[in-house]
């Protein structure tokens, strides 16, 4: 039989025709009253609480990798400055892991019903995005700015926003839908430039700082909130950060659960991120 002429494709499971018939029957039947199968998430509490924590990196973070800057070098390599890969930022003093994103998967109520109208500034200078992870609320204006003497374009993957941003100017972008996990932001004129953006409807997103600490304020109290954790270099599915923390019910999909009392400031302490969960 045929040998070596056709690429060997992996075997795929066949669809179950009988089950498909049954499913089609339910889909084609008249629409059931929408919302009948799902009860609205009952909000069970009042008041708001705050969540705090700190991510520490355990292990060897490896050498810092320089980026290949081969264009507009009079601006991008000005004064001999070398741009480096920022995917794994570990503070040498405190071992804090920066740019870990923590967001609420579902919250029954939000403190401020509508997003703030003050624009979040997302700037770029010396051919680098100044904010490695941009967190914003759906509907909140973002001032995509360019403080370089040369032009850039800002391309937010998955949002089909890819616009020229001339030197010294900015353009306002309002995300219309929430991202699942954070999505990449790049410049096509200078392809080494990279950042991430995460937009959530309820706005409950926090990004860990240089020392690894994060704060999520005004979370609804009195209900179990499931939080998703993400890091750019994590080995987990879609970048989810799965840690060993059974007391918080931390899952391999990078999720953990907390419940807050009104006006409580809950500090979940230090969360060790071992080098084994971080990819190369």
């Amino acid at each position, binding site marked *: 039989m045929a040998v070596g002429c056709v690429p*060997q494709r992996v075997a795929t499971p066949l669809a179950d025709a009988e089950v498909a018939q049954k499913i089609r029957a339910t889909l084609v039947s008249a*629409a059931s009253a929408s919302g009948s199968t799902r009860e609205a998430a009952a909000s069970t509490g009042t008041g708001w609480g705050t969540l705090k924590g700190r991510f520490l990196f355990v292990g060897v973070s490896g050498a810092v990798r320089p980026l290949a800057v081969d264009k507009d070098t009079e601006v991008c390599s000005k004064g001999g400055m070398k741009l480096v890969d920022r995917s794994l930022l570990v503070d040498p003093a405190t071992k804090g892991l920066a740019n870990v994103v923590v967001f609420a998967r579902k919250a029954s109520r939000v403190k401020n019903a509508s997003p703030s109208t003050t624009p979040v500034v997302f700037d770029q200078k010396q051919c680098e995005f100044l904010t490695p992870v941009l967190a914003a609320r759906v509907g909140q204006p973002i001032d995509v700015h360019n403080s370089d003497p040369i032009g850039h374009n800002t391309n937010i993957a998955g949002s089909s926003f890819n*616009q020229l941003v*001339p030197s010294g100017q900015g*353009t306002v972008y309002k995300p219309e839908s929430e991202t699942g996990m954070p999505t990449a932001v790049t410049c096509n004129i200078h392809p080494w430039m990279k950042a991430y953006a995460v937009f959530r409807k309820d706005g409950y997103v926090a990004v860990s700082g240089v020392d690894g600490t994060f704060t999520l304020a005004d979370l609804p109290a009195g209900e179990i909130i499931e939080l998703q954790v993400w890091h750019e270099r994590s080995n987990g599915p879609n970048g989810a950060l799965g840690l060993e923390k059974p007391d918080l019910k931390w899952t391999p999909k990078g999720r953990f659960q907390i419940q807050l009392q009104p006006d409580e400031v809950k500090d979940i302490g230090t969360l060790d991120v071992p080098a084994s969960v971080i*990819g190369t």
Partner: protein
Amino acid sequence: MQLANCLTEIGRQASRLAFLLLCTLVLASVIGCGATPPAYFRPNMVESTKQRLNPEQERQVATVLLAMFGTPDHPVALAETGLNEAKLHLAAGPVRSDIVGRKNGLYREHCAHCHGITGDGLGPTAAFLNPYPRDYRPGVFKFKSTERADKPTQADLVRILHNGIAGTSMPSFALLSETKIEALAEYVKYLTIRGETELTLIRAFFELDDDAKGTLPETREFLVEETLTPIAAKWQAAPAAAIPVPPIPANIDLVASIAKGRELFYGDKANCVKCHGVTGLGDGQANDYDDWNKVIVEADKEIRSGTEQASQASTAGMSPEQLADHRLQLVWLEKFHQVLDGDALTPRTIPPRNLRQGIYRGGRRPLDLYYRIYAGINGAPMPAAKGTVPPEDIWHIVNYVRSLPYEFDGELGADRPMVAPNRF
């Protein structure tokens, strides 16, 4: 003498016959002489392997898709998709004639060899083409009259079928009747909606709560109202998202417009030369990817980094649980590697367009160039000038671009010949 010649001639014929017989036998043993198996939709293996679906989950996705969309021979269009099932039946199925001599199976006759039965751009000829044929499944189309984020209109799809895409292997189907072109456009929409639904379903496994069994709900609410309807709604909203095009300024002085356009082309508002090059030959950049190839490049990176880490991990100090995880990881890496081998084409960078050739893929009307500059090109690195360059200035850039193949400007690099090299 003559007899000897005659015998040599017979000998030569006989050996030729024997050779032909040998070839037929070899071919028959290689290809086989059975009936062609029925066409089937191939699952999106790259995405389902990336999302680490197990075989039961892959099977569930295939079953749900069979329920919602049918097979390549018997397509099904639920009312929510807004598709015309009669047109789909004209385009679907094997190539055959009906009782009045109308040709059916249009998609398989004209499109499947490049775009694939599943519309995944993995047809038998795809690997030999540059650029690769379009993979419809992400639902992204490059050449259209709507805003960047929106779907193409019916007229956009018909235009591409009618004109083909200059500079690529996509031919013109102007010789087909309007009914047939519309049937093909409808079938392309069907394959696209099916592909987008498949991607959403595959990604939905990650969104499941951790205590769910690892299967998707097979309810009308989840499948139709939450998954299918938003996808179909974007197609129905396409005509409302048409790019607003102001009329070309009256009494336009073409020479002045071209000069203004040149200024903008080289300026730092539009930044055209940064990618298209100071020569306009498209040599400003060579290392970016379009969205379809980027997926494969990133998958490749993931496999490489995973393999490196797995090979560095020492199995000595591992608990049985960790060892099991490690083995699963190795199996997954091997599967992903095989999937990239058989279900994906070798990724290629996307070079910026060589504007000196006068070949414009999305159409060469000034209006088409306006659309490309205003909204950029969805799926490609080309950014949108909307909001940065005012509409009259976009017309000036359009005029300059159209003059590029004829520009004889000694100032523009007198040391470079003004001959456009033959490149893509």
